[in-house]
């Protein structure tokens, strides 16, 4: 049995949305590191190490003054590049007084932070999730701290066979009858899955929103993507008999907090019933409930692992995606050295 991989840091993670990062100090833990996020006066998002260089006090408990952060305990002041710019007790700043400043990028309404070696940030890509910040899509979302490892969450999202067990009422009816073959495509750092369902009724909740008869047949294409440890994306695209499409995107942003807890930012986006508040509320209640159930199940698995340790596991062929994710995470971690 190989030891389970720790958290890869050479990855762009999205621990917060752009809306959450503002002119106040936001403490967040990611990949075992304490971060404090804020915006400069000009609106640039910044991520600093959330621990004063002087003594062990979180900068987030201090004050944001202009583009600088002042420690609430000792008064050291740090600029957005992490360098200490002044200390209250002497005219000169001690040499080497600084906190880590992490590379930050913003795209698709998310704040992405690079937690690995800063020089390697440009060599890795940020996943593209355009539907999260587009007028052609409506999105409902939620954010939870989950007491389970990021890898358990990914393996759960990658396991297309679990939905009918965890949440039978939201699963497409066709999953119960004759699941079509699952095509899995792998490369060095990513995995995707795809399957095409023959025409069948949409799940009741979706038919209701689309406003079609409950038994109207739709041909459905399902795809799932693991572009990096930061996110799992599902596409459910359904085409009615008249040729029109209704599309759903499930975005699951996973940021490891430490080895056994994670931040999950989930978003359900649709390209129909745009801007309809009642539909938003309906979907929000359905999927808050769904993700709560997934989270409960994963927290139970993490509990068992914490109490009894990893045990022998039986794999089936349909686990190919989850197993490949484990492999990718292990090699990312191995490449970071010890």
């Amino acid at each position: 049995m190989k030891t389970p991989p720790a958290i890869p840091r050479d990855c762009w993670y999205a621990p917060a949305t752009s809306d959450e990062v503002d002119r106040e100090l936001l403490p967040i833990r990611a990949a075992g590191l304490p971060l404090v996020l804020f915006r400069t006066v000009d609106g640039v998002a910044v991520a600093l190490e959330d621990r004063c260089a002087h003594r062990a006090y979180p900068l987030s408990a201090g004050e944001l003054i202009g583009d600088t952060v002042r420690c609430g305990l000792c008064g050291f002041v740090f600029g957005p590049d992490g360098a200490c710019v002044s200390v209250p007790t002497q005219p000169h700043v001690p040499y080497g007084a600084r906190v880590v400043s992490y590379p930050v990028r913003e795209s698709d309404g998310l704040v992405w932070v690079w937690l690995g070696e800063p020089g390697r940030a440009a060599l890795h890509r940020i996943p593209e999730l355009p539907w999260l910040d587009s007028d052609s899509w409506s999105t409902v979302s939620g954010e939870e701290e989950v007491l389970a490892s990021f890898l358990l969450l990914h393996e759960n999202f990658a396991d297309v066979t679990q939905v009918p067990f965890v949440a039978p009422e939201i699963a497409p009816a066709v999953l119960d009858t004759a699941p079509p073959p699952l095509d899995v495509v792998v490369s060095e750092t990513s995995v995707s899955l795809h399957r095409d369902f023959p025409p069948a009724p949409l799940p009741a909740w979706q038919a209701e929103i689309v406003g079609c008869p409950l038994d109207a047949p739709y041909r459905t294409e399902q795809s799932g993507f693991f572009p990096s440890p930061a996110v799992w994306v599902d596409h459910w695209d359904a085409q009615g008999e008249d040729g029109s499409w209704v599309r759903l995107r499930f975005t699951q942003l996973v940021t490891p907090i430490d080895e056994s807890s994670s931040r999950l930012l989930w978003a359900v986006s649709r390209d129909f019933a745009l801007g309809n508040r009642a539909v938003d509320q309906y979907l929000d209640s359905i999927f808050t409930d769904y993700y709560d159930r997934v989270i409960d199940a994963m927290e139970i698995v993490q509990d068992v692992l914490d109490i009894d340790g990893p045990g022998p596991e039986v794999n089936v062929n349909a686990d190919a995606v989850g197993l490949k994710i484990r492999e990718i995470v292990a090699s990312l971690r191995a490449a970071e050295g010890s």
Partner: protein
Amino acid sequence: MTETETRLREFESDLVVESYETVAEDVVTVTLVHPDGEPLPEWTPGAHIDLILTPEITRQYSLCGSPADSQRFTVGILNAPDSRGGSRFVHESVQNGSVIRIRGPRNHFPLVASPRYVFIAGGIGITPMLPMIAEAEAAGAEWSLLYGGRSEASMAFLPELTKYGDRVTLLPGNDVALMTSALDERLGTPRPGTLVYTCGPEGLLGAVEQRCGSWPPGSLHLERFAAKATEGAVDTEFEVELARTGITITVPADRSIFDAVQDHGISVLGSCHEGICGTCETVVIDGDVDHRDSVLNDEEKASNETIMICVSRCRSGRLTLDL
């Protein structure tokens, strides 16, 4: 609930040659893009792709562009006199606008983060080193490159390398005595905290391997172009339990595990079928593997954790694999 058939494959796509350039005597670089401008899969330094050149010829080439470029794959190809057809095909039949099917990328030569590196390249073995050096440089690591070749005119990427100044040592002229003393100087004394990466002809790899024998385990990383010779190996019949699928199959003396598994309609990944590309690496649950590949190092072989099912066989009469 009925059965879900899972079909596993690697990323595969027809790409267009955006540029075909002669960069040294008998060496070309081929840059490939998606015909619709779609992004290509991400990779890390040391990765390679398959070029599927004809139905019979599939060859592996290291990626030598930038991993940050999501639009392009670039490979460097030597027209080797002893080519088995792959590089000759490229040199004779490929031009700008040609369509080439690719598979991958995959990486069995990953660059592990380290404060210090010694890179040693022979001839076209320089290709995987280029993105490795860029990454080492970006990470602020200390590194040196020793690059040997037939002649300066035959050594590719010299303009790209000269900007690194005295970190790069060129040894043109196939001078064995000079190469030997350069290797002794760099590798004669084991240096903990330093990783050695080498790629090139078998003679060079053997010399590096021999000198790194006294280095801490895990210091040496090498990639072979061609399969290591397996002399005197006798092929016998054995049984393989496919744990995931829940069946046991017989592998006849004249078939590989890979072929036997495929004969039973089970989806497995494979590419080179000669134990050099690492695509068919499979987890071993039980049994004693007769390793015949050129991918795993001695430690990895001894650990018996994985097997390249295209060439490796069994010493214990029965293997249990996670398939």
